[in-house]
């Protein structure tokens, strides 16, 4: 199972075959996600006085977590496998969110001009994909072409999301200024606050996570995935072998940005608001922390990290709202020192110790 593709120790772990390995991890994760969907929807159907009943509020919360998981997957894809530390993925998330917000805004309300176009569902979905995708394409093209790497890349991604935050704060942008977009009523003709819509959005978000996971696995277990790892660990050598490292980076970066955009688009109808705060540089950094905590370059580590941290955040911010950032920071420090491979790495080493078998 452990897909931690960094050399873990001198024990010489043996990987027997590529094929089985990829199938097992993907099947297992998909099964878990499916079961989670069935379980939550099933428990939601129980009578509301039943002890195991899961209320709409919880379903909605879980749907929100799914969006975060999807965002974390996007970050792990490029950070874990390509070594590109993007501290601006919140921007792609927010752009997808704004595209969805504009669509919701155009329902019933009389907006005009370009925003009216986004009132058509297919066009809005296109915008959800294109807005983050094109930004990533242009930004990535400029950055990778001039061989901006490492911490410099991280810094300019922070600058990018900060600049977008300032831009979206302005009223002239016509997207709600600092208040953003809110008071959405319906999606595809169904009221947003209805029970059916809550469940539908949760299921859609979970399926999006599942689909994205499969796509990420397809990429990372392909030869392209091996080129990514090669690029991460020895870029010049990979280039010397004849691979167009810049093209690889750009392609994966765009795929990752689109995934983040879809996460944002699913997030907005579930929380009912999108504002420039989503572009906040700090949010992008938080996402990286989720992935680091869960375990880099494992994909499922990103899922676990996003879920655990956000669940903790929900619990702790109601208990002690001021302490959250300190707790998150502390957690990050402890985990990077004690568990450099994150939760997924811990799980893998526990399995190894117990089973004694080195094959994954």
């Amino acid at each position, binding site marked *: 199972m452990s897909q931690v593709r960094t050399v873990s120790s001198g024990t010489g772990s043996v990987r027997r075959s590529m094929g089985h390995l990829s199938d097992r991890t993907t099947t297992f994760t998909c099964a878990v996600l499916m079961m989670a969907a069935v379980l939550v929807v099933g428990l939601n159907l129980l009578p509301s006085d039943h002890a195991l009943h899961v209320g709409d509020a919880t379903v909605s919360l879980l749907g929100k977590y799914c969006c975060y998981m999807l965002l974390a997957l996007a970050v792990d894809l490029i950070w874990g496998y390509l070594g590109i530390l993007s501290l601006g993925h919140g921007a792609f998330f927010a752009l997808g969110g704004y595209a969805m917000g504009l669509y919701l805004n155009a329902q019933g309300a009389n907006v005009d001009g370009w925003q009216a176009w986004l009132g058509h569902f297919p066009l809005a979905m296109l915008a959800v994909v294109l807005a983050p995708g094109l930004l990533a394409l242009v930004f990535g093209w400029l950055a990778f072409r001039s061989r901006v790497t490492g911490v410099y890349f991280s810094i300019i991604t922070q600058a990018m999301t900060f600049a977008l935050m300032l831009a979206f704060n302005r009223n002239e942008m016509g997207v709600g200024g600092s208040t953003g977009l809110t008071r959405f009523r319906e999606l595809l003709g169904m009221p947003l606050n209805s029970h059916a819509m809550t469940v539908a959005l949760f299921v859609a978000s979970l399926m999006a996570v599942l689909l994205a996971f499969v796509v990420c696995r397809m990429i990372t277990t392909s030869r392209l995935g*091996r080129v990514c790892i090669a690029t991460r660990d020895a870029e010049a050598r990979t280039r010397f072998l004849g691979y167009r490292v810049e093209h690889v980076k750009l392609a994966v970066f765009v795929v990752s940005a689109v995934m983040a955009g879809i996460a944002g688009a699913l997030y907005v109808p579930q929380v009912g608001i999108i504002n420039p705060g989503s572009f906040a540089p700090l949010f992008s950094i938080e996402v990286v922390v989720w992935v680091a905590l869960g375990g880099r370059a494992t994909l499922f580590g990103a899922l676990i990290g996003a879920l655990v941290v956000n669940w903790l955040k929900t619990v702790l911010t109601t208990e002690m709202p001021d302490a959250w950032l300190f707790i998150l920071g502390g957690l990050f420090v402890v985990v990077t020192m004690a568990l450099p491979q994150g939760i997924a790495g811990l799980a893998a080493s526990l399995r190894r110790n117990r089973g004694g078998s080195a094959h994954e």
Partner: protein
Amino acid sequence: MSETLNRLRDMARPDRVFDFMVPDVSPVDVRHGPILYMEDVTVSFDGFRAIDRLNLTIDDGELRCIIGPNGAGKTTMMDIITGKTRPDSGQVWFGSRHNLLRLAEPEVASLGIGRKFQKPTVFEALTVFENLELAMAGDRRVWTTFMARLDHEGRARLDEVLETIGLEAERDRWAGVLSHGQKQWLEIGMLLMQRPRLLLIDEPVAGMTEQEMHRTADLLNRLAGQQSVVVVEHDMGFVRSIARHVTVLHQGSVLAEGSMDAVAADPRVREVYLGAEEERHA
């Protein structure tokens, strides 16, 4: 005129560097002579002649050792062959058809000249098998790489190279856990995946154990014949164990050439190189 401009623009494109795996249409022509021919090559760095009227020919399928004291110009000679350094004068031909001085580094590589640098760099987080797979010649575009599946021919080639470098048993181990010597062989294997005609290998046994050195000698001996191999090496014992033909370089030009024994008996060689070497080892 506009064609020249286009060519120039193409060369200026930052992504062009990566094109060198594309197989060259015109094969190397060795019907009328050697695979590598260097004549009167001279290079100066700030007035200092690192290579001074060097003449060297390598025959097809030959295994040649180049020895010489530090600073003799061995690495510089390889830089010239691979297009990394341009000589001030002289000629360098690959077969009788390709003038290497007109070609850029990637083009030289695509003609089938593989070079192993001194420090081994393999992809540590990939297995031995995957390292070789990435080095396999083929289409390197993003989408084709994503869709790529190993076909029969590729698999056969991989197994063949694995056997040649003697790493069959390590096939599915991470390259990061290999010994220093095994990493060197893996890197030679990665060069072989591209089916080179001429291999340039700089100091392959530096840092190897005695046993690893023996295996490396075996490997290089097996490689010769199928491709030409030029080895630069300091270790005299090693050179003695592989070389049929040795060239001694000194101050940028050839001091002596011949069998190891003949060269070792040459008083000039003893003076500038072997003597010093033996003193150092004594």
